[in-house]
């Protein structure tokens, strides 16, 4: 339940942030879409358990606000979080400690730019559908009935888990690489000088043996090729190490560039959030010239 509630809250957040900042239509339209899907899925009937997580409590509060007939203004996640915190302090005794910013950060850390998400309320309806199914399943199990997922569904779920694991492994690999120290420019030059000196001594040794020229060439060329290979390898290692240390804005810029390429191929326009990311990254790259 918590997983799906977190996903639905992130989807609501994405829908909310698809509006330009300060757009007066944002709270009302966010409330309308949430109320629409909430009602269509029969979620009014879902009761939160005493163990409801922060995401569940914020989402349920947002739905209450969205469906309140006296609330003409609408809803924002910020307002829902604030109200959920107030309710928790008054009635629940368990304060709300995690907000949508934490979920957003966890999501970015887990998936980065690896997922392409719909910009309309498609993700919201899908995630709420999953949440609704999970809530039914919870009630079925709660009433003492057995429910076993079919072999086919289990296989699909296993595949999803495998894909997720691969994604996480790749992310962890990148994080581990980031943690490795990058050799400085001085170490890099010293290493290159060391290779050069070794080659020079080797060449001198070959020449001192006074072997015929063809033999001298035969001895020097492989060593020269090896030296060239090691130099290219060291350069590539250093470049990769630096690339993996891109700051978040630059990494986001890369994802946005990929998004932009895809958007140009299709019809979906860039969202406000993406253009903000581009501006932030350009500000970092260009020393603020583009601000």
């Amino acid at each position, binding site marked *: 339940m918590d997983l799906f509630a977190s996903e639905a809250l992130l989807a609501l957040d994405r829908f909310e942030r698809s509006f330009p900042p300060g757009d007066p239509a944002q709270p009302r339209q966010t409330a309308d879409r949430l109320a629409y*899907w909430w009602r*269509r*899925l*029969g979620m009014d*009937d879902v009761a939160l358990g005493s163990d409801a997580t922060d995401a569940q409590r914020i989402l349920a509060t947002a739905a209450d606000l969205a469906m309140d007939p006296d609330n003409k203004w609408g809803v924002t996640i910020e307002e829902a979080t604030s109200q959920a915190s107030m309710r928790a302090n008054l009635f629940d005794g368990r304060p709300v400690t995690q907000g949508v910013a934490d979920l957003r950060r966890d999501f970015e850390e887990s998936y980065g730019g690896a997922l392409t998400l719909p910009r309309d309320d498609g993700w919201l*309806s899908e995630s709420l*559908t999953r949440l*609704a*199914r999970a*809530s*039914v*399943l919870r*009630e*079925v*199990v709660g*009433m*003492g*009935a*057995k*429910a*076993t*997922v*079919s*072999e*086919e*569904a289990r296989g699909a779920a296993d595949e999803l888990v495998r894909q997720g694991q691969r994604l996480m492994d790749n992310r962890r690999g990148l994080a581990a690489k980031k943690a490795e120290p990058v050799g400085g420019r001085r170490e890099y030059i010293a290493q290159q000088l060391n290779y050069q000196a070794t080659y020079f001594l080797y060449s001198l040794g070959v020449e001192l043996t006074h072997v015929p020229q063809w033999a001298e060439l035969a001895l020097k060329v492989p060593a020269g090729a090896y030296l060239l290979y090691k130099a290219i390898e060291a350069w590539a290692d250093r470049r990769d190490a630096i690339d993996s240390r891109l700051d978040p804005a630059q990494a986001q810029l890369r994802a946005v560039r990929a998004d932009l390429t895809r958007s140009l191929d299709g019809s979906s326009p860039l969202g406000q959030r993406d253009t903000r990311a581009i501006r932030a990254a350009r500000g970092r790259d260009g020393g603020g010239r583009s601000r």
Partner: protein
Amino acid sequence: MTLGSMSAAAMRDLVEAGEAKPLLTGFDVSPTLYAGQWWYVPSGSDDAADDDADYVLAGPDMSAQLDRLRVRTDRIDAVAGGSA
């Protein structure tokens, strides 16, 4: 099959024939509506052949809850299926 109980295999046949309708789609074992009555496999038995445990008739309270859940799953299926 005894009065008030039915084998899992018999229930599967009824579902495949379209005579019984499970509450949860994508599940092999799920509370199932057959002939206007709810049938379910009680949870708790945890042996390997659990999936073949018999279905039993649900009582009135549980049937009322399952009726309520049925309304929700119909709505969910309608949204997931893209119908209005």
